């Protein structure tokens, strides 16, 4: 396998890790104002992701850094092109990050309500924007011969991409509700499960609408034909199975299935893109590919050695943290956030 291909896969893995992991904490953040009926419940909800969200967010930072290192042109075109969308996402992430830390530290209802609103928006907006961004990546965006994005913020918004954004929001809300059902007990757990069931139905519907629209708005499926192949089909089947696992109260299995759905959906997108990393809607020949966007062979070799030595260590201690904080949160206990 050439190093360009390997790094395309590694970056896909990093984004997948980001969506699976931060996906649930975005979902939890979005649901917090609705599922938490009083201050303690809201705190329990926030504390359920307390030990994890920051580590999860590093998957995004690493994906960004790895894109810079392995495909500088991709990084340059994507970040300067999706400029205002990225700006909104950064505002959301900045606000959300401090909100977790600041919220419960001052005992004032107005103070806490303000930060709850920041957590909600800060979780919803990145999910929405990533959905819109992925739909745009699939559909293609105006890119000139010098690899520069020539559209504007509104070029990125279309009915198709907004459906993409919505399906991401719903997917993460479902994923988050299931995570909550694993971390809580009693009333909150019951409510999380109910929410998962309700959101799950809409997630399934909107995801299928999105897939259907993709047949018309992108070249992904026309490239491979009517049968999209095993990965997306399996993603669909796994998503449908979530409803079953929620009904039989197998929360762990249901959460595993939403994780698998996110993995397979992300894989579908990256498989559809390959070997392109950004599709030019102006002229297909101007698309960025893993060949014209990549770093030199030397740099990719260095980065490969670094990645293969560090990633196992990172995975080991991140898995260890999930093990340390595996116990469900009980009402009445000490809360750090």
């Amino acid at each position, binding site marked *: 396998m050439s190093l360009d291909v390997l790094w395309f896969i590694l970056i896909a893995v990093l984004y997948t890790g980001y969506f699976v992991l931060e996906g649930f904490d975005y979902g939890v953040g979005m649901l917090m104002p609705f599922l938490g009926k009083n201050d303690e419940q809201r705190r329990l909800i926030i504390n359920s992701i*307390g*030990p*994890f969200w*920051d*580590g999860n*967010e*590093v998957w995004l*930072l*690493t994906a*960004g*850094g*790895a894109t*810079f*290192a*392995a495909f*500088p*042109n991709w*990084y*340059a*075109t994507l*970040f*300067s092109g999706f*400029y*205002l969308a*990225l*700006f909104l996402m*950064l*505002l959301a*992430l*900045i*606000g959300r*990050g*401090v909100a*977790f*830390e*600041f919220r*419960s*530290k001052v*005992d004032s209802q107005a103070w806490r309500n303000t930060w709850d609103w920041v957590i909600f928006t800060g979780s919803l907006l990145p999910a929405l924007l990533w959905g819109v961004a992925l739909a745009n990546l699939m559909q293609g965006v105006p890119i000139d011969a*010098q*690899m*520069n*994005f*020539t559209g504007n913020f509104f070029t990125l918004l279309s009915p198709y991409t907004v459906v993409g954004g919505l399906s991401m929001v719903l997917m993460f809300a479902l994923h988050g509700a299931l995570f909550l059902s694993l971390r809580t007990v009693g009333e909150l757990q019951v409510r999380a499960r109910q929410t998962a069931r309700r959101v799950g139905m809409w997630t399934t519907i909107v995801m299928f609408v999105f897939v259907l629209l993709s047949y018309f708005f992108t070249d992904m499926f026309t490239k491979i034909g009517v049968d999209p192949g095993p990965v997306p089909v399996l993603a669909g089947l796994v998503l449908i199975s979530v409803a079953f696992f929620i009904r039989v109260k197998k929360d762990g299995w249901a959460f595993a299935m939403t994780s698998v759905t996110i993995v397979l959906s992300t894989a579908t997108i990256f498989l559809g893109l390959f070997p392109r990393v950004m599709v030019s809607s102006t002229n297909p020949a101007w698309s960025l590919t893993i060949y014209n966007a990549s*770093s*030199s062979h*030397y*740099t990719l070799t*260095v*980065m490969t050695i*670094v990645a293969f030595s*560090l*990633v196992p260590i*990172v995975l080991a*201690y*991140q898995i260890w943290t999930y093990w*340390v*904080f595996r116990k469900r949160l009980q009402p009445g206990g*000490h809360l*750090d956030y």
Partner: protein
Amino acid sequence: MLNVFLARWQFGITTVYHFLFVPLTIGLIILIAVMESMYVASGNDVYKRMTKFWGKLFLINFAVGVVTGIMQEFQFGMNWSSYSRFVGDVFGPPLAIEALAAFFLESTFVAVWLFGWDKLSPKVHVLAAWLVAFGVSLSAVWILAANAFMQEPVGYVLQHGRAEMNNFWALISNYQLWVEFPHVWFGALSTGAFFVTGVSAWYLVRKRDLEVFTRSFQIGVMFALVASVLTVVLGHEQAQHLMVAQPMKMAASEALWNTSAYHAPWSIFAVIDEARQVNPVDIKIPYVLSILAYNHPYGSVPGIHQIQALYQSRYGPGNYIPLVWVIYWSFRVMVLAGTLMILLALYGVILTLKNRISRHTTYLKWMVFAIALPYIGHTTGWIMTEMGRQPWVVMGLLKTNLGVSPTVTSAMVWTTLLGFSLIYLVMGLVDVYMFVHFIRKGPDLGEDPSEMDAKLTPALS
């Protein structure tokens, strides 16, 4: 040109703002790890209370540092896409490695530390603090490796229309990196130390929680002395290296328009006429610039005009002179801050050793304000080093005005510049409010807001 101007302001504001939080993160976590180690070694509960109190302030500061760091990593692609395309092959890897090696470590173990008090054994818990300390310091190494490349590009070859890495080892053994990192790191340590010393002084003046804050003061002031002395000594190393790598920055920091005499005097106060390129007033101390540049009282230092002529023959026609008055004064303010830090810390150590701290309330009150000194030092230091590199974004390779994103309009940069500045301002105010809030409450209150208020209410009524 407006784009370049706005993008530079945005970069400057984000970086300076981010670097208000980073040094305290690096410095404070080391002191906290020391305090917690003392707790684990001695079992003395006072050290645990100290650890928890400083830990709370650390976490507030850490949160802002982290979120502004996200911006730091993404703004290269947003506003500087031509730069990113040109140097991404060399500049991207340190950033990616920083995320992989350091960001994961610090963010994971900060959470383990915060949430793990009753889930981990004390030894594993203190290890988490040390891992955070290691992670944040490692982060500094990698981001400074990237910065060092901008100051002194090494380990690359120009081909395929861009800079491509051809020697990773050269990149991370860059001499510039190893004069820059220790200076920045000890500066960060002194920030943490002055913070602990200053906040403790505030309590000592009020005779509150003397057990916790006498010890905190002692630990803080010792670290403050060692760290500020080393910051200055290592800064001197860095200045000497400027003579080799960036003589223009050195000349600008002295407003030295023409090459000095063999025994170069150091300007202590100058009125700079930037347009006519002369200093109508210039008060000098003999020999000191030679010492600064070469560590000997002799050796002439090249002037701005001479280096400008040299650069024109080397890089072609153009203006290679940075904004002199900014470099000149930021350098002097930094040096002054460093000097005051050493003197104040030295005095504090003497008083501590003589066990006379509690009687010197005036000194203690000064130390509260002295918290600002390392911040002044860092900010002016970065302004000097980054603005002193102009007009280059990568010294000798790429000029700043060629690095911006070609299709990002100035209206877009205005939007993000105002948006980020506004959120930074709000966040800064909230951050200070939280600090004051918790410092007022003190170490024993504020464990949990509900308990805290239960304790506070009777006191207030």
